[in-house]
Each structure stands twice: as C-alpha cells, then as structure tokens.
C-alpha cells in the first residue's frame, strides 16, 4: 500500500489521463493470474502474443507500447523497447513483485470458502467413460 519510495515527488510529469489510467487499471492482470502466468511451462508472451484474457495482444499492435513486443510477465506491462524493459527489471517494484510471486498461491475463492467454514466442493463421482463419450 502506498507509493514506492522512488516514485515519490514526481508531480504531474508522468501522469496519464483519467480514462487511460482507468482502462489500464481494468486491463491489468490480477495477481492470481500472473501467479499462474509465471509458472506456465509455455511462455506466456513470446514477443508476438500476450497472455490470454485481459491483455492478449499481437505483435505490431499500434495501441500497445513497443508494438506489444516487450512484455514484463510478472508486472503484466508492455514497454517501448528492450532497453526500457531491461531497466524496468532493475527497479524496486519489479523486484518486490517477483518476491510476492515466489510465495504461496494468492487468496482464492476456495480459500474464502474454507475460511467461512466450508469444505472442498463436492462434484460427485467422476463420469464413467461411456457418458464421457456421449459428450455429457
């Protein structure tokens, strides 16, 4: 909570418009999504495609910084070029984010239900092969 120390006293210099900021807020991937992104065996972003869901982008998309080629997976952010991506990876917020992602799985609905005194969901006996073949 609160600003990272290096971000203080910036004034209005780096401020984006209200709408841009709001859209960025909604499009940003949540911590539980990123937690899974980081652990995926297939790369979530290969320079052409972003992660499925909130910020999926194709390369040479003019709406995205750097045409969507330079993406920081832990922070789910696009950068203008390889140099700025690299310098971002040296910043404190990025390192803090890495530390969080190394930890346990973020709070989920299952956790919330367990906290409310509920057990794991009961999905009944697994479907038999015959039923599965029928497509139910």
């Amino acid at each position, binding site marked *: *909570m609160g600003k990272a120390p290096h971000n203080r006293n910036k004034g209005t210099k780096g401020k984006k418009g209200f709408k841009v900021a709001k859209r960025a807020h909604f499009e940003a991937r*949540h911590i539980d999504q990123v937690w899974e992104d980081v652990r995926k065996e297939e790369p979530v972003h290969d320079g052409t495609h972003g992660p499925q869901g*909130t910020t999926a982008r194709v390369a040479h998309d003019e709406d995205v910084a750097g045409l969507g080629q330079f993406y920081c997976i832990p922070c789910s952010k696009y950068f203008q070029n390889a140099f700025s991506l690299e310098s971002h990876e040296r910043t404190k917020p990025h390192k803090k984010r890495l530390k969080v992602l190394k930890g346990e799985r973020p*709070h989920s*609905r299952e956790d919330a239900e367990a*906290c409310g005194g*509920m*057990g794991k969901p009961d999905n009944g006996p697994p479907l038999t092969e015959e039923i599965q073949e029928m497509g139910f």
Partner: protein
Amino acid sequence: MTFVRNDSKVFHFCRSKCHRNFKMKRNPRKVAWTKAYRRAHGKDLTEDSTFEFERRRNRPEKYNRVTVQKSVQAMKKVLDIRKARADRHWDNRMAGKKKSDTAEARKVLENEIHLVKAPPAQLAEDPEGYMEKLKVKVAAPQSMESMEE
C-alpha cells in the same frame, strides 16, 4: 455483490467494504479484519472435521423428505459442536493472557509511579530506595593513555 472478471472468473463479496478492498488489490491475508487473516494467524479454528459438512455440491440430489428432516437436525448439532470447539480454541489461545496482563500492568505501575505519588513523597517515605532508583549505569571511564592515542 458479484464481480465477473474478463476471464469469466466470478467473485462474490459479502459487503461493499470487501468489494472496495478487492478493487484496491489488497491481500486478504494481510488485512487484519478478514477471516483469511484470522485463519492464517491462528486466531480462528482451522482444520476441523465440522468444516466437512457444509460444502458446494455440484450434483443433483433427489428430494427425500426424511433426508431433509435429518439434515436439518444434523445442522443444529454440527453448529453446536463447532461453536464449542471454537470456544475451546479461544480459551486455549487466551490461557496465559491474564498472567501477562498483570505483569505488564505491574511494570507500568513501577515505571510511572510518579503519576500516583509525587517524587518528594517517595523520597520522604523511602530515601535509600528512591536514590537507588535514580542511579544510572554508565560505561567505565576510559584511561588517559588510550585517550591520548
């Protein structure tokens, strides 16, 4: 209150307070008033067999009057048992509380006795003890030789 994320994951919130905190991207495990915090820090009962009864059941159950009656009876019983266990957990958690509280209060009284009894009165009552209290420990003075160096 329900929020559906753009990857079609559904989030339910018990009240707008929780919704607002979610929008602020807070971690429930670190916010002290949440159940998640209380469980993670051992304040509430965890891993109890009474938690196994209530659960989301994603399968149809044929209506049966007897089963319903029995379930309703069982619910009351299970709730009672859970409450008793939660109370016991609280008792265990608070076992040493009174002793530590008393010790702390005694320490405060000792340190701030001047608020109860004025220093001159203390001096008149127990001159030696009072002077002893005023003494402050100081490191041994350095020898002149070491200072010259």
